[in-house]
């Protein structure tokens, strides 16, 4: 499949989204709201639940599958308060020694006047710093679109998993095409050169695992993902925290040179 076909798949409004995965991955899910600073961001859903018999904190971006839902979720574009809610729940997870699972699905952090006034850049930056030393296992999964810094704000983890038709990019293919060729309609070409598919990124060591999607139902994909999460959490549970953090640092340290 061409890269841009996967972009279209990732953005498809019928695709399974954050809430679907939360509900199928976990039992006894309890949602928690608010950043304790300003408000509650509907674009990010967070809470605790059981992954088999293990309590975990889950934080998911949610785009919304109906018109009303999309408005409530701001089309999955988080504001600073969403990233701050996420960080609050991560700190809570650290305190109670629960692993953190982040589900990424956004075209990007929200571009608005209020988001800038409340420090969109600062909110993302703080998450990058704090996630790097969060003293509990962190796994991130790109389930749909991984839109640049707004996605990375939930993407500093021990391992990053991608669904096969998810994409993860520094810039949208349309944005790239309009800068490079002054023509947003060349997005398909931009999608190829940016190397944004799960397979491309695995080959380059940016992510660890690809969960196959071809000929699989959403339920089957989710169950495969669950098995992968359990396997990885079992492995990190054996590591002392200092080793876990050392490996997380080195995971990013080695990217590039």
């Amino acid at each position, binding site marked *: 499949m061409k890269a841009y076909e996967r972009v279209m798949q990732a953005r498809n409004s019928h695709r399974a989204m954050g809430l679907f995965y939360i509900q199928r991955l976990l039992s006894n899910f309890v949602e928690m709201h608010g950043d304790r600073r300003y408000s509650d961001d509907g674009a990010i859903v967070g809470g605790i639940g059981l992954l088999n018999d293990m309590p975990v904190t889950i934080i998911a971006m949610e785009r919304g599958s109906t018109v009303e839902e999309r408005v409530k979720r701001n089309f999955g574009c988080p504001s600073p308060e969403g990233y701050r809610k996420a960080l609050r729940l991560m700190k809570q997870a650290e305190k109670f020694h629960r692993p953190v699972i982040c589900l990424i699905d956004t075209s990007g*952090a*929200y*571009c*608005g*006047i209020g*988001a*800038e*006034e*409340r*420090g*969109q*850049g*600062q909110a*993302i*930056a*703080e998450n*990058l*710093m*704090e996630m*790097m*030393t969060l003293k509990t296992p962190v796994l991130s999964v790109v389930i749909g679109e991984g839109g*640049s*810094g707004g996605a*990375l*704000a939930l*993407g*500093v983890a021990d391992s990053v998993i991608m669904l096969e038709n998810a994409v*993860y*990019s*520094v*810039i949208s293919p349309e944005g*790239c095409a309009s*800068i*490079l060729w002054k023509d947003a309609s060349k997005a398909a070409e931009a999608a190829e*050169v*940016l*190397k*944004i598919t799960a397979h491309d*990124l695995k080959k*380059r060591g*940016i992510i660890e695992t690809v969960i196959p999607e071809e000929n699989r139902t959403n339920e089957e994909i989710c169950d495969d993902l669950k098995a992968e999460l359990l396997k990885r959490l079992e492995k990190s549970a054996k590591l002392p925290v200092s080793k876990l953090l050392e490996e*997380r*640092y080195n995971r*990013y*340290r080695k*990217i*590039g*040179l």
Partner: protein
Amino acid sequence: MFGLGKTREPENLDVLMTCKACAEQTTYGTLLQNAMVCPSCGAYMRMRARERIDLIMDEGSFSEMDKGLKSKNILSFPEYDEKIQKAMETSGENEAVVCGIGSIEGVKTAIFVMDSHFMMGSMGTVVGEKITRLFERALKDALPVIGFTTSGGARMQEGMFSLMQMAKVSGAVKRHSDAGLLYIAVLTDPTTGGVTASFAMEADITVAEPNALVGFAGQRVIEQTTGQKLPEGFQRSEFLLKHGFVDLIEERKKLKYTLSKILKLHR
């Protein structure tokens, strides 16, 4: 704010540069004497990394690190090789950041200075690597870090490798911070995108130059997304100060004094 002089060779000190704010012409030599501030209207020119180092560091104290690191076209991205080549020629630098160790009024400090004359200060793997190495060196030698930011954000041409530099540098900043060491960021015009969403906003003390554009999203993108007209002064230093995201705004000519004062309060 000005037309650019090509290099900082002494013979070019007589080159006339035009202020984009007031159209007044001034020689490069006079501008250098005036910290690259227009003598007639006070507008700030975007400084080259080495001009900044000359302005801030004690004379002869700066010793550069990793000067030789050059970007490679890791994704075989179209037109990137030519862009790097052109950026090296016009900026006289190998990359968009200069890093090293020196002293400010006698206080030894690690410093990085980004340069918008190299591909708009965009961050690819070399920029990320150089800044990471600087923080790691500062951690090892227990030095404070001062960082001058100016950037259009993560460098598109290196794809996800660029985005990952945000996490990589943030990790190094965090280790330096957890060791109780000081990091001062100085935000200069313009600081946007992935740099704002990482190390520009991770300092203990955040200083900004007056009227510098500092934000996450681009102004045109915000206008297109929201259909709203942006308020006067939106994403300028004074706007960030008002909303609580910078500690202080300092004039360029007083920066060295203010930075040294802060450094000395941490000894």
